[in-house]
């Protein structure tokens, strides 16, 4: 570490509380502004394609960003994150189909279920490191997937939850109306991203980065690494589950594919595409992947080939995600400008 960097570090620690508060307020303002813009979008573009697109972006975006809390911020490469996406979809769908409780109750109850399941699975998994962690999470995912497939009387097996998800209106919000669902998804997305950003910027978020960089040092200075890892594992699961709920509402059902390893794979791919070093990387990756997927499937049935080439381009060509690349490029340009000035 150079003296200059050490200096910067010291300054960062001295940020007064007032400044942290303004940061928080600024985040909240940005979130509010983004939500207003998204909510007003349908008044400008009446395209239903756009609504569907943003709803799916919300589902996958929450899922991928929450995965980045594990992968990018904590260094936990989870191959089984999709299980919580599936759990959210099934939990919510079953709750609405079987009990007929109001939507917000089912939403909260699903998150509670996810919390409990994630706590149990996390308690077992986060003790493990690297490849062992990755494989045990994958194993749990396959366990949940197999359970969904074989518990036919409850889940409908490989046919999924059939008969549609009922959604009685609440507080004037009718989620069977596409526009209402759109606004609700935008709200969940923005709130989710805001909360995740707060987590990432909090002292706890910086603890996670430290664990990622050197877990042993973290434990030497008195951090309970296991507890920190478990906390973020559970928090990430809650956001992934919210993504699953949005997806269940979008397709009006839940299918075993939602809990299959391919969903986790897509999450990892989105993170590769967008980049894991910036907070918004996975969101950019989501938009990029969905645009790619939608346009390429429209144009050719050899979409696998095209997507494969794109992956190769990012993995071998750029060697980083798009946002990483943009941020670096921007920083370099500013440096150059500074030198010239």
């Amino acid at each position, binding site marked *: 570490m150079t003296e200059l960097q050490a200096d910067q570090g010291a300054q960062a620690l001295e940020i007064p509380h007032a400044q942290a508060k303004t940061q928080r307020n600024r985040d909240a303002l940005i979130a509010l502004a983004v939500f207003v813009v998204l909510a007003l979008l349908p008044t400008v573009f009446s395209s239903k394609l756009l609504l569907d697109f943003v709803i799916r972006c919300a589902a996958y975006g929450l899922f991928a960003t929450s995965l980045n809390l594990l992968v990018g911020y904590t260094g936990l490469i989870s191959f089984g994150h999709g299980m919580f996406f599936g759990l959210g979809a099934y939990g919510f769908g079953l709750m609405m189909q079987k009990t007929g409780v109001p939507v917000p109750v089912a939403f909260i109850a699903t998150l509670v279920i996810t919390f409990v399941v994630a706590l149990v699975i996390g308690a077992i998994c986060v003790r493990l490191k690297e490849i062992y962690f990755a494989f045990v999470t994958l194993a749990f995912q396959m366990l949940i997937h197999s359970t969904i497939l074989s518990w036919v009387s409850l889940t409908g*097996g490989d046919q999924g939850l*059939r008969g549609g998800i009922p959604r009685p209106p609440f507080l004037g919000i009718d989620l069977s109306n596409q526009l209402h669902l759109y606004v609700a998804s935008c709200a969940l997305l923005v709130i989710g991203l805001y909360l995740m950003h707060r987590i990432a910027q909090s002292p706890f978020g910086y603890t996670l980065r430290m664990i990622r960089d050197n877990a042993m040092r973290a434990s030497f200075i008195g951090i309970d690494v296991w507890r920190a890892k478990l906390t973020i594992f559970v928090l990430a699961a809650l956001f992934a589950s919210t993504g699953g709920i949005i997806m269940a509402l979008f397709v009006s059902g839940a299918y075993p594919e939602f809990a299959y390893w391919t969903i986790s794979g897509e999450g990892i791919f989105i993170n590769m595409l967008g980049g894991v070093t910036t907070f918004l990387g996975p969101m950019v990756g989501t938009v990029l992947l969905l645009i790619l997927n939608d346009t390429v499937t429209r144009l050719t049935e050899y979409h696998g080939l095209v997507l494969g080439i794109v992956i190769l381009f990012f993995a071998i060509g750029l060697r980083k995600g798009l946002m990483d690349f943009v941020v670096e490029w921007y920083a370099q340009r500013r440096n150059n400008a500074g030198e010239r000035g």
Partner: protein
Amino acid sequence: MTRTRKPGVSRRATLAMMGAGALTFASPWLARAQAKTIKIGMPTILSGRVAQLGTSSRNAVMLEIEKVNAAGGLAGRQIEMVIRDSKGQPQEAARVARELVNTDGCEILIDAEASSGAFAVHEVARDLGVLCLHTNSETSALSADPKQHIPNAFRTARQGVHDSIVGGSYAAAIAKAKGLKKWATCSPDYAYGRDTTGEFVTYLKRFAPDIEIISESWPKLFQPDYTEVVTKILQAKPQALYSCLWGGDLTSYIDQANIYALFSQMEVFAVNMADYTALTVVKNLPKGIHSGNRYIKTYPATPENAAWGDAYKAKYNEYPTNWSWENATAIMLLAEASKKANSADGKKIAEAMRGLKIKSPFGADGTVTMRAEDQTLVGYAIGWGTTIPQEPYVPQVQAGDWKTIFELEAEWKKSKGYT
């Protein structure tokens, strides 16, 4: 010397991006502007393990659409098919279906999805109210369960419960004649495999009550190696074996079981054998495997069916599949219903289609009917026969009796609490 260039996005790039953006959002309206033609959207599986079946669905649809268009289209409007891959994922199937209706302006959906994808498209049809014909899902609940019922969705495919009734009664007759008491089953381990096998055994025991199942095997779907399963069955020494393995799984199973000479030691009933995708791929097709008909151009043994199979072969250089006739039937029904309603409007076509009986090369008596009460296809050719190693592969097919099917189907519905 270095090139000087202003930082930031160039004007040319901005223009290009704006152009691309405008095109993306304007394309639906451009598409809609060319009225007169009617667009039919079709999500199906064109990649992955079952791509061959998806492709055969598309082929059959295109074959029929050409005929309909040549005869003037749907109430004077030429049909344009928009066919898109769903990769066999239900969320993609739902997305593609919505996109086809909302953006591409498709007025009718042909849902050529299997299994969960069909249920996902069904929800889209429920939401958007668009006329939807399910062509590939054979899950009985799709039309039998009243919770699934919507006025704008129809099924033009065979149905699991029909297969089980016909298979059970056919197998029971042979079991009685040959004294086959000890049975084994071997089916893929997922809902279709478990349900179909369960229903088959139910009806087998109903017609021949003294039968006993002495061994059950549930290999995984798409399992490459069946040695373990084959030896387990041989050790149990059953007199007969039932299997609803299909496609590549069935052909690998037969190839591997042939090594152990399994087929000479017991009677084998494989419901999905008599489909060209399986018949033409097996290396040494054993003689005497009992199978239900999936699609075979010699059954029904009519000139119309043979001509249809040959026309397909001539055009695509391969034989049609089970999914092919189911998709062709959808277009035939659509054309007839539109003629009857004298309209291309989805609601009017749906109205005309309920209870509609049409001439069909695939009908048991030369016709098929869209049953009004549950909007599913009945009266199609359904029967069982035994294989020979060369064409016509299944020379004699014993027809199933639709009267029995209707009686037992009604009973089955009642037992499930559907009626």
